[in-house]
């Protein structure tokens, strides 16, 4: 019995099944005793003679016992923790009880000739399923003994013979012994063959069941890992700058792979050095070197050619550039993979364990997947940042020589290279001025270019516009007073937030306010109003007492490089892009702008910005 216990104990799966099956057995007994009682009495009324009274008593006893069984089952089930052994014993008790009851029924229905004899097969099946193979054979033996005893008792008249069910024929007499023996032997072989079949079948089912559990467990683990990988990729996707992304990668890799440390090294532009860009779990000392010379590290060289590298036990010194450091760190095994996208390799992703031979083929496959996804995320972000990189680089390339020229002009004008004649001074000052304007055109172009490039791709968030307006006004306030222009603010309290981006709002306010001050002669006035309008929008109004805009020029006011004639005459400074920036900012904010102007008296711009719900722009 002991091996039987072990086998069942091992698997929670089978234990649960045992508990349920035992309960099922009890329920079955209700049905059987009920049906048998009913069948018996029906048969009795149909005048089929058989000893109805003993049978009735028997089935009533069975039913009563079943109540007891149910109580016991409930008791055993409620125990914490459940003892498998108890259920097994209980199963034995029930099966034994049933067999005894069945043999009584068999006796009363004709002994060895009873048609109900075959019902013992049910118990073989039950024993085979619920109990160990050995138990099953033991019950088979018990059945054969009982059957033999039954024959013997009836043959030798130790028990009164009973009429055979459905046949109304008395039990055959002693001279039929060979026939009885033949019958018995046939019966015995049937029982034994069934026992053998059922135990063999069950054994193979159990094996399959066990391997299914193993596979299921592996699948669960795999699932967990893949879910973790998915979360890691999502986190990387949300990063908006490279370092954050790489840090997130190393942190998650260390956690998911369950290792001591992790690092990402990226190839420098010269493709000759690898630089530690992010590490987790490694000491300062190890990463302080910062740079690995590829010439000196065959391992990294091989990885950068595309192969992966696992080492079960760090031994050979000549693989690494800094072998001592690796040992000191406590690293016993490591796995390194190239970071590559479309055949282009740009870095190395390593994980380190303090346990030798930690990484198996499954780990290699999984980490491979992780490295590829990480590489894609890094490359994607780089490309996204690259889109704006070109514009920014272009602006820088334009600004640098411009700044150098302006500094050199200043040098001359301030007399550092000798005296400057008046006429020369005038000309050089004009140069300075033109260059200044050129600088502003470059800045505006960059701003406009970037805004157009990222439009629709940046996520808006709730922005409080009041502080932004305040700071813009402060910044321009000084200039305004220098120019003799008075600035007046009316800002309501508790202006609601709008869905926007701080830079966008800043550009909007800056350009309009700067224009107002620029085109208002000394002694004039600029009025700035910020208010909440109705339930769903805010109003930003800026009015000046400046030169105004001719009606005929208003339609073209918001087009690129357009400057009204009177504006050009009043001030040469102006890129013609400021209002384009304003208009496009309002478009993105889903707002609108109106302009009213009287030449010579002043202009008033009114902007409406809706108080939106999240999701104004897609990401």
């Amino acid at each position, binding site marked *: 019995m002991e091996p039987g216990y072990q086998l069942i104990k091992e698997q929670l799966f089978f234990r649960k099944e045992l508990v349920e099956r035992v309960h099922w057995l009890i329920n079955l007994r209700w049905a059987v005793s009920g049906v048998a009682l009913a069948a018996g009495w029906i048969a009795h009324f149909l005048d089929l003679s058989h000893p109805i009274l003993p049978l009735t008593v028997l089935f009533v006893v069975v039913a009563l016992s079943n109540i007891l069984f149910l109580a016991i089952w409930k008791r055993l089930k409620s125990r914490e923790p459940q003892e498998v052994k108890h259920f097994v014993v209980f199963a034995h008790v029930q099966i034994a009880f049933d067999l005894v009851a069945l043999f009584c029924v068999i006796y009363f229905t004709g002994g060895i000739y009873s048609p109900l004899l075959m019902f013992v097969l049910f118990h073989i099946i039950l024993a085979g399923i619920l109990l160990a193979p050995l138990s099953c054979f033991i019950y088979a033996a018990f059945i054969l003994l009982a059957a033999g005893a039954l024959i013997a008792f009836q043959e030798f008249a130790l028990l009164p013979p009973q009429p055979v069910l459905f046949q109304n024929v008395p039990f055959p007499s002693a001279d039929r012994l060979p026939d009885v023996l033949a019958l018995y032997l046939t019966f015995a072989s049937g029982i034994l063959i069934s026992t053998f079949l059922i135990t063999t079948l069950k054994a193979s089912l159990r094996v399959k069941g066990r391997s299914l559990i193993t596979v299921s467990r592996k699948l669960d683990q795999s699932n967990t890992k893949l879910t973790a990988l998915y979360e890691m990729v999502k986190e990387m996707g949300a990063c908006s700058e490279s370092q954050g992304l790489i*840090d997130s990668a190393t942190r998650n890799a260390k956690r998911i792979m369950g290792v001591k440390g992790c690092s990402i090294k990226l190839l420098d532009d010269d493709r000759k050095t690898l630089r530690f860009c992010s590490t987790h779990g490694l000491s300062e000392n190890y990463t302080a070197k910062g740079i690995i010379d590829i010439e000196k590290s065959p391992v990294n060289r091989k990885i950068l050619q595309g192969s992966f590298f696992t080492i079960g036990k760090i031994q050979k010194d000549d693989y690494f550039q800094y072998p001592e450091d690796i040992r000191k760190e406590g690293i016993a095994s490591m796995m390194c993979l190239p970071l590559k996208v479309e055949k282009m390799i740009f870095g190395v992703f390593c994980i380190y364990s303090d346990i030798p031979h930690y990484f198996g083929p499954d780990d290699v496959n999984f980490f491979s997947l992780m490295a590829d996804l990480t590489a894609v995320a890094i490359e994607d972000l780089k490309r996204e940042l690259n889109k704006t990189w070109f514009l920014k680089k272009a602006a820088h390339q334009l600004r*640098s020589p*411009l*700044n150098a020229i302006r*500094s050199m002009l200043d*040098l001359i004008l301030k007399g*550092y290279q000798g005296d400057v004649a008046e006429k020369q001074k005038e000309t050089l000052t004009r140069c300075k001025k033109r260059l200044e304007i050129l600088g502003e055109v470059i800045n505006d172009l960059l701003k406009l270019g970037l805004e157009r490039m990222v439009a629709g791709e940046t996520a808006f968030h709730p922005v409080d516009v009041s502080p932004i307006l305040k700071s813009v006004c402060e910044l321009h306030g000084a200039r305004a007073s220098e120019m003799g222009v008075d600035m007046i603010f009316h800002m309501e309290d508790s202006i609601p937030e709008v869905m926007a981006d701080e830079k966008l709002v800043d550009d909007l306010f800056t350009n309009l306010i700067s224009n107002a001050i620029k085109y208002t002669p000394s002694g004039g006035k600029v009025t700035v109003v910020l208010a909440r309008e109705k339930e769903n929008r805010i109003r930003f109004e800026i009015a000046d007492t400046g030169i105004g805009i001719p009606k005929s020029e208003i339609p073209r006011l918001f087009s690129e490089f357009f400057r009204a004639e009177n504006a050009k005459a009043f001030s040469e400074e102006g890129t013609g892009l400021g209002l384009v920036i304003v208009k496009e900012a309002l478009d993105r904010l889903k707002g609108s702008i109106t302009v009213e102007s009287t030449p010579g008296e002043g202009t008033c711009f009114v902007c409406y910005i809706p108080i939106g719900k999240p999701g104004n722009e897609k990401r």
Partner: protein
Amino acid sequence: MGTGADILIIDDDKDLVNTIRIILESRDYSVRAAHNGKDGHGAIEEKIPDLIILDVMMSTDTEGFDLAYKLKNSPQHRDIPILMLSSFPQKMAEKGPESFQHVLGEGWPVTEFHEKPIDPDDLLEAIEDILREENRI
């Protein structure tokens, strides 16, 4: 007023370097120049200057900061004041620490940002202030 202090300019724009040199030499500062981070570092090793004027971007976006942090992390060089030249000094001062600190280390290395284009008077004043501070310490 010049003090004969030794100033090292590191910037890849030769015109700008020349302009600054003329301005500084007019006040009797002694001026050395380098046009990239590597040469700059070499010049510092040769002789420690009293002040470094450093451009933010040269051939790569972070060359200026790379050098600045390298100096900060080296004991004999960490106390050299650095005046950084940038087209957008305000943005640099805000954005700089986040972008670079975690990669390159602790300790913001820049003493002061100065705006381009250079105004000679402003530049001289800034340098004077820094050198005065340094001598006080």
